[in-house]
């Protein structure tokens, strides 16, 4: 068969194509983030971060939204972390392969692929109306907990499972019980992976807007009690941008969100790097 392009030329062409698509992908993403930061960072100052919104967000700051975001994310992690880590320990250390375990795994995977708006619908029907929690940080936080759960479970399970089996065998041989072994030996060894899982869950919760659209309300005041309505940052950005309230405040809010995610990622990566180096050094 006659080749129109020789293998050598194909190699050269494809190398250019690969470089081009690599650069294009990075460029698209960086231009978007760069643009948001360029427009948003000048808006951010102490008054913006720690001030109350004036005239439903046309002017003033976003302090109540920052508090709201931290509040709902904290509730979400408080609920999802014990459930996710406990389930991961059970699956990795206690469970054999049986139908219940398979069902648990299937449940967790399905949970991970459910769209956030469905969580929002469920939160509205279950927490807000059925349990009577109303539009509140509690309803919003619990809805976000359900979303963060599969992320925390999956990452924790992998890291608990990958703990060297000789560790727990050593502990058991010394007469420790199963739980003592898990608690004192396996979990500490798996801690970096579990931490990563929790942080990933946190990033998912802090970035989410659709799931809390109809569960957390949209109040502009600082939430104090668990049953107060609130307006986390992504929701505020959505409302301010779509209702054309204030472009400047939208840029500022977007930039704060991007910075939050960047900080979370950099801190996690640094911690993990340090931990891995420490373990390798031994």
């Amino acid at each position: 068969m006659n080749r129109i392009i020789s293998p050598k030329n194909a190699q050269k062409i494809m190398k250019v194509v690969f470089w081009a698509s690599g650069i294009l992908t990075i460029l698209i993403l960086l231009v978007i983030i760069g643009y948001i930061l360029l427009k948003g960072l000048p808006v951010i100052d102490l008054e913006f971060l720690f001030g109350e919104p004036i005239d439903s967000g046309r002017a003033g700051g976003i302090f109540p939204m920052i508090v709201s975001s931290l509040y709902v994310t904290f509730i979400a992690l408080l609920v999802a972390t014990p459930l996710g880590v406990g389930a991961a320990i059970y699956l990795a250390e206690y469970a054999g392969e049986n139908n219940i375990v398979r069902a648990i795994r299937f449940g967790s995977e399905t949970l991970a692929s459910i769209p956030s708006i469905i969580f929002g619908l469920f939160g509205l029907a279950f927490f807000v109306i059925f349990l009577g929690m109303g539009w509140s940080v509690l309803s919003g936080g619990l809805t976000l907990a359900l979303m963060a759960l599969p992320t925390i479970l999956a990452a924790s399970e992998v890291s608990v499972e990958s703990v060297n089996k000789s560790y727990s065998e050593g502990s058991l041989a010394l007469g420790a019980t199963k739980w003592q072994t898990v608690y004192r030996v396996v979990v500490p060894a798996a801690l970096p992976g579990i931490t990563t899982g929790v942080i990933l869950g946190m990033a998912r919760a802090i970035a989410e807007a659709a799931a809390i659209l109809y569960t957390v309300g949209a109040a502009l005041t600082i939430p104090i009690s668990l049953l107060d309505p609130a307006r986390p940052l992504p929701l505020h950005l959505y409302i301010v941008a779509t209702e054309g309230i204030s472009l400047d405040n939208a840029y500022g809010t977007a930039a704060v969100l991007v910075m939050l995610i960047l900080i979370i990622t950099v801190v996690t990566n640094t911690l993990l790097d340090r931990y891995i180096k420490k373990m390798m050094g031994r």
Partner: protein
Amino acid sequence: MSRKTDEFLIEKGLFITALSSIIIIALIIIFIFVEGLPALQSVGVFNFIFGMDWSPSDGQFGVFPMIIGSLAITGLSLLMAIPLGIFCAIFLSEIAPTSVRKILKPTIQTLAGIPSVVYGFFGLIILVPFMRTQFGGTGFSMLTASIILTVMILPIIVSVSEDALRSVPPEYKEASMALGATHWQTIKNVIFPAAIPGVITSVILGMGRAIGETLAIIMVAGNVVQIPTSILDPVRALTSNIAIEMGYATGLHYNALFATGIVLIVMIIILLVIANYLHYKKKVTIGGGYL
């Protein structure tokens, strides 16, 4: 004795935490279905799914245009994101120097965590006006939404595909190169085929995110209930329908939005089953490429 009881209680406690995901998924399905069924009963399942009219004030509830809308936006964004994402993944795993990869990989992973509302906001501020001046109309369209979705799912496809490509045993590559194949021939005929199951997983993850995305799409898609005849027509996705109207829905309208949720769940389950089947099939047929 008490120590033994403790151990037993702890094991049962952990078992209960493990059950939580099943309980949650069951609760979600029960509540969405219970709230959605009245609408399905009153309109009829067939009329609800294949009905062309959605006008809650007249009691017309047909979601077919939105099913098409969701599929069209997702399909178009995959069409753009898959080639670009896979090429970028190959670039990172095979072509890029180590120093470049060490910077780019974490950057891309970070970008996967950027809130979708931020991407939607960028679309609303920059892309919509750009489309308006380039193609006329309002600028809110299926194409605009697909471009924003492409940007959102690119990081997922790149980073998961790259992991799959990198976990292909290096012996494969070395053997192919030793036989005189060029690097491109090796990538095309050896490395990529071996990594296909992982690449399919990345596409499934991207597709799941695209079809479930809500607010970013609302911000740029125009949200008109119609079957698009061109990629420049405004469309409404199933997810958008729920988010836009839930704020003021009462009575049967409220139930119809939960029924929209049922349709969305069923669609996602069907897509997941198809995708997992493809994944499984490739996993079996490609010997050795067990990823």
